[in-house]
Each structure stands twice: as C-alpha cells, then as structure tokens.
C-alpha cells in the first residue's frame, strides 16, 4: 500500500501501476487521461508506469463546457 494524491485527495492504494489504478477505479476501457506530478502519462505507458508514494495523480475526462 502506498499513499497517493488522486485528483486532489490523499488516499491509499494497492495499485502499483497506472493501469492497476485505473482498473481499481473502474475506468477500464473508458476514455480518460492521466497526469502524474504534472507530466502526462501516455496510454501506451500506463502498464509500465509505476506509482510512487506521494505521487500527485490526476485523472481527467472531457465534460460539457464552452
């Protein structure tokens, strides 16, 4: 278990990669984008990208806006 700041909220996770985190959040096959510590993580690297303690993770999507 590590502690990450996910979308602004501190929380524990057993996921060790971005893919595992996404899966644990029910985002499998959804359209989203991930940033860790202000660096975009391309989809192709989600599997191999390790999560580290205290990482700031942002998971975003498109919403209505003008």
């Amino acid at each position, binding site marked *: 278990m590590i502690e990450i700041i*996910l*979308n*602004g909220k501190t929380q524990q996770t057993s996921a060790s990669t971005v893919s595992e985190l996404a899966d644990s*959040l*029910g*985002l499998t096959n*959804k*359209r*989203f*984008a*991930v*940033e860790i510590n*202000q660096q*975009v*993580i*391309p*989809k192709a690297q989600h599997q191999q990208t390790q999560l580290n303690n205290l990482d700031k993770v*942002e*998971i*975003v*999507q*498109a*919403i*209505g*806006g*003008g």
Partner: protein
Amino acid sequence: MNDTVKDVFRIADKTYNSRLLVGTGKYKNFDETKTAIEASGAEIVTVAIRRSNIGQSANEPNLLDYISPDKYTILPNTAGCYTADEAVRTCELARELLDGHKLVKLEVLGDQKTLYPDMEATLIACEQLVQRGFDVMVYCSDDPIAAKKLEDMGACAIMPLAGLIGSGLGICNPHNIRLILEQAQVPVLVDAGVGTASDATIAMELGCEAVLMNSAIAHAQNPVLMASAMRKAIEAGREAFLAGRMPKKAYASASSPIDGRFF
C-alpha cells in the same frame, strides 16, 4: 445554393460545411446536449477538461458517448485556466485524452467576474502551444494588435469575443472586429457574447469565417429550437456577406417605377 456549394470553412487543414461551432456546457442533460447539437448542424464541438468523478459512479454516462469523436471534431478548451501553465497542461492532457488530436481552443482568463482573456498570458501560452505542435484556436480580446501577434506566432484561428462569455450582449464593438478581419490571414471567428440569432448573422455579415457559441443555445428557453435558429442565422449571414448587401441611403428610393402611373 449552387453559389455556396464550394464555400467551405477550413481550419487546420480540414474542411467543414458548418460555420457554427458550439459548446457543450449549461445543458440540462446529455440528451438535450446531443439533440441541440444535432439541430445546430455543428461539426466542431468544444469540451472542457476536468477531473473524473472518481468513485462516485464509474458507470455514469460520459459526454463523449453522446458527442462522439467519430462524428464530431472535438475541440478541447482551456476554460477555467488563469495562467499560461494551466492552459498548456490542459492542452497536453486533452491531446492525450483524444489520442493525439492536436486542435485546441486556448483561453487564459483574467478574472472570474468578466472571464475576459488575460492577453499577456494568452500570448505566452499560444507561443508554447504552437511550439509543442498544437493547432491553436485562440479566444482573445478584440485588440487588433494582439490578434496580429497571435497570428504571427502561428495561431490557426483568431477568436475575439463579441461580448463577455455568457453575457448575450452581441457584438459590442464591431469596429474592432472589422479591423481584425481586414488584416487577418487566418480564419477569424467570433467567440462568446452571442445572445440571439441576429447577433450571429451580424458576425457573419462582418466577414467572420464562423462563430462559436454556447450559452445562446443552451440558455434559450428552447435550446433545440434555438440551435436550429442559429444554424440558419449563420448561413443567412454568410450568404448575405457573399451576396454583397445594398448600400445604405439617407433617403428613399422607390421600388416601383414612377413611369406609367395612370393617376
């Protein structure tokens, strides 16, 4: 119209038949969003980028399920950004989200009351985004000098506000829009401030290539019908621009001949 068959709108090397770009905010729900956008005939649709609602309901519907990137050109915007850095980060995430799609709408705002662009920051962000390979459509003030700078640094469209975002005040300063139009080599779109159909028509009559709007449709009492009105208003304005209006006159000019009167 035969005359307009070839009158396509080109942005970043892609052509469109519709000159109406629409936002996706402020609708009651995604069904209304979808129906209104269909009625508008828009081909380019702008969306905001925000944190996913994690944990709440993973199965809640997603905007892009209703407005499919397969059908529409999705134009992610940087609404809500108050610094150049925020805007650049948002664009990077949007590009990732949309599988490398590089067309973005840049807006860097100055304050919450007016949502007027911070042009100093906008210029900085635009330059960075162009360097990073984005096709940047820029929401900007109606300052013709700043507009020229944006074009010179590689913006693919200049989008001066007609009026404040969500104000519905129409084109507050047509003189400046005209100055921007006269000098621009890239498309000029009016973005923000349109309140009703005639505002859109006027923008097109001035010579704008297209108009981007959101509140005017979404906040009408009947958004779907207003979407249809806007579609026609944009086409009417474009055709009137191309047709070349009659000159204004201070005095009357009879439509019927004077000769041949029997009275």
